[in-house]
């Protein structure tokens, strides 16, 4: 595949790019009683080396089916999957295992395996029947350990690990497999916020440092928008949308896919309905401004951009460390202002009735 772009001096330059994974007119689904049920069809997608791709879509649109087809577990109904420059259908299980590693959602049943033993399993596509590790194998394992920072976990049994630690170990195992493509099925499910961010950042770092193409199915819209190099959006009625996150936000592709209610993708914020009558104008800057605005929106106050149309103005004074809020009644222009020192007090003040009798 070639990409043309105009350089700064106005010349057209074409670069040819080799993909880690590519599909041609791929249709996936399953066969039941010799009848084909197509779930996703005519897909031409690519994954470049060093690219982190987040694959999103609502449950049931066929994410798992596509992942299974891309990883050679299930044959395509039509079209082809290319791993590097080879058709995946022509590769043996062992060949595929040397080019594509998997992290599945299912719990590993072998709870009594130590983390290091788990990592050695990643070398199996390269080992003979007697599974003897060479010094080169051990070096690769050590490298994966260093990249995922799991040095302290090596001797622990899998069943003693926390969810986040276990996921890191599973990613390290996939890394040990030393493949150009890594496919992960919802790697952040069941994790708490800290671990989610850690895992996603780890994958991002791996895609760059080890130049891997990483495909991750996920529901984490906010994280995906911030780290993914590319999004694949699966849709129950329509083609698979691909593109960089920002383009998909701006062209509405994400809106179509998720049909989010009450969330404004373009601002990345929840849209609040106004429930109060008191219109407020906020004057100030910095974090204090941001979070005052958040508090007022969350409580349903209509915000106005100038003090002219507002019934109340909130003036931010004080310092960054100890902000103060002055409340001005715009109708009367009453100068004896009320001053509070927390957002909570401000909210109480606004809700206890207006106009105030001072």
């Amino acid at each position, binding site marked *: 595949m070639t990409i043309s772009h105009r350089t700064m001096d106005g010349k057209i330059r074409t670069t040819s790019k080799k993909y880690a994974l590519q599909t041609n007119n791929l249709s996936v689904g399953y066969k039941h009683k010799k009848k084909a049920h197509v779930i996703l069809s005519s897909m031409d997608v690519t994954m470049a080396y060093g690219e982190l791709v987040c694959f999103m879509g609502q449950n049931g649109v066929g994410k798992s089916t596509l992942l299974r087809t891309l990883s050679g577990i299930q044959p395509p109904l039509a079209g082809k999957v290319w791993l590097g420059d080879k058709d995946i259908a022509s590769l043996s*299980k062992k060949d595929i295992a040397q080019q594509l590693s998997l992290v599945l959602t299912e719990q*590993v049943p072998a709870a009594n395996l130590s983390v290091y033993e788990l990592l050695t399993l990643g070398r199996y596509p390269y080992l003979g029947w007697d*599974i003897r590790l060479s010094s080169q194998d051990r070096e690769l394992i050590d490298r994966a350990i260093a990249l995922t920072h799991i040095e302290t976990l090596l001797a622990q049994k899998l069943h003693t690990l926390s969810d986040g630690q276990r996921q890191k170990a599973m990613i390290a195992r996939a890394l040990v497999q030393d493949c150009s493509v890594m496919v992960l099925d919802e790697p952040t499910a069941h994790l708490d916020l800290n671990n989610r961010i850690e895992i996603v950042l780890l994958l991002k770092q791996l895609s760059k440092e080890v130049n891997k193409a990483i495909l991750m199915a996920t529901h984490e819209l906010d994280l995906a928008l911030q780290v993914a190099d590319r999004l694949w959006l699966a849709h129950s009625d329509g083609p698979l949308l691909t593109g960089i996150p920002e383009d998909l936000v701006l062209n509405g592709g994400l809106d179509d896919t998720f049909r989010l209610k009450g969330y404004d993708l373009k601002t990345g914020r929840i849209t609040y309905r106004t429930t109060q009558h008191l219109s407020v104008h906020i004057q100030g800057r910095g974090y204090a401004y941001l979070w005052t605005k958040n508090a007022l929106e969350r409580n349903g106050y209509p915000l106005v951009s100038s003090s002219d149309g507002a019934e109340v103005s909130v003036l931010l004074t004080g310092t960054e460390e100890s902000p103060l809020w002055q409340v001005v009644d715009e109708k009367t222009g009453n100068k004896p202002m009320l001053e509070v020192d927390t957002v909570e007090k401000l909210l109480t003040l606004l809700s206890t009735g207006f106009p105030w009798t001072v």
Partner: protein
Amino acid sequence: MGAMLPVLFLMDISLGSVWIPLSETLRVLSGEEAEKTTWGIILLQFRLPRACTALLVGSGLGVSGILMQTLFRNPMAGPFVLGISSGASLGVALIVLTMGTLSGIAAYTLSTWTIVLAGSTGAALVLVMVVSVSAKIRDSMSLLIIGLMFASVTGAIVSVLQFFSTAEQIQQYLVWTFGSLGALDWEELALFSPVVFLGLLVSYAHIKPLNALLLGERYAESIGIRMSRVRLGIIGATSLLAGSITAFCGPIAFVGLAVPHLIRLLFNTSDHRLLLPAIALGGANIMLFCDMLAQLPGSEQRLPINAVTALFGAPVVIWLVVRKRNIGNTL
């Protein structure tokens, strides 16, 4: 464990209804004449083959037990979950329970070879059925259920056969189900031992897929294991081991289930490179031990080996379950 084996082996052949001093036993083993010629005969013709049988049976059952536990990732699986012993039972029952009525030959004239042939044919037939059904299904769990169903069917047929049999026939069949380590002479051992050794070798050749299976079948495939081929290989090894053992010695319970758990607890590992040899050794030790228990000290009587293994095995399994709480964690 390796050191325990010769000790237990010696103890096993020293014990019996006839008291033979240890020095004499050693002399006979080193090829010299014993003080009494009967001692030599007892040792060489009876006790030695029986101890060798115990070694082979213990190793074979233990190893086939872990093959099944790992393949099905089920701590309660054992060598007979695929219906191998039910098939053998059916074969033997058909011969023992119908022979007399059909041909007029008294049941007790049936030779060991006939019973072995009947047992292995039955086991092989059931196995072929289970495997051909398993070719149509993709996951091992269904295979487990199918094995259990075949066991129920064969069990039912055996019940029907027993219903129409004479007391003598039923007794001979029952004696077979008690299990016996003493039925083999050197000639039979010459066939039995290579089959068991082959089964052990095939098992050891599968250490890589067995370890990979610790992650589950989907992960195993993702690291290059061809599950369809491996499943057949593991089933093949189990059939060689459990099938030949059941055919020659009757259905011997619990060893195949309990030994892998004991060894896993002892070594605290899941690595089959270590587990398989350790289980083969451990199984041999335990079988020799059970054989000594079966020979009631100072008595002429010998308990059925199947009763001893169950009496010994069941409490061990209960103890394990209570101690480990979640026995699945040791798999």
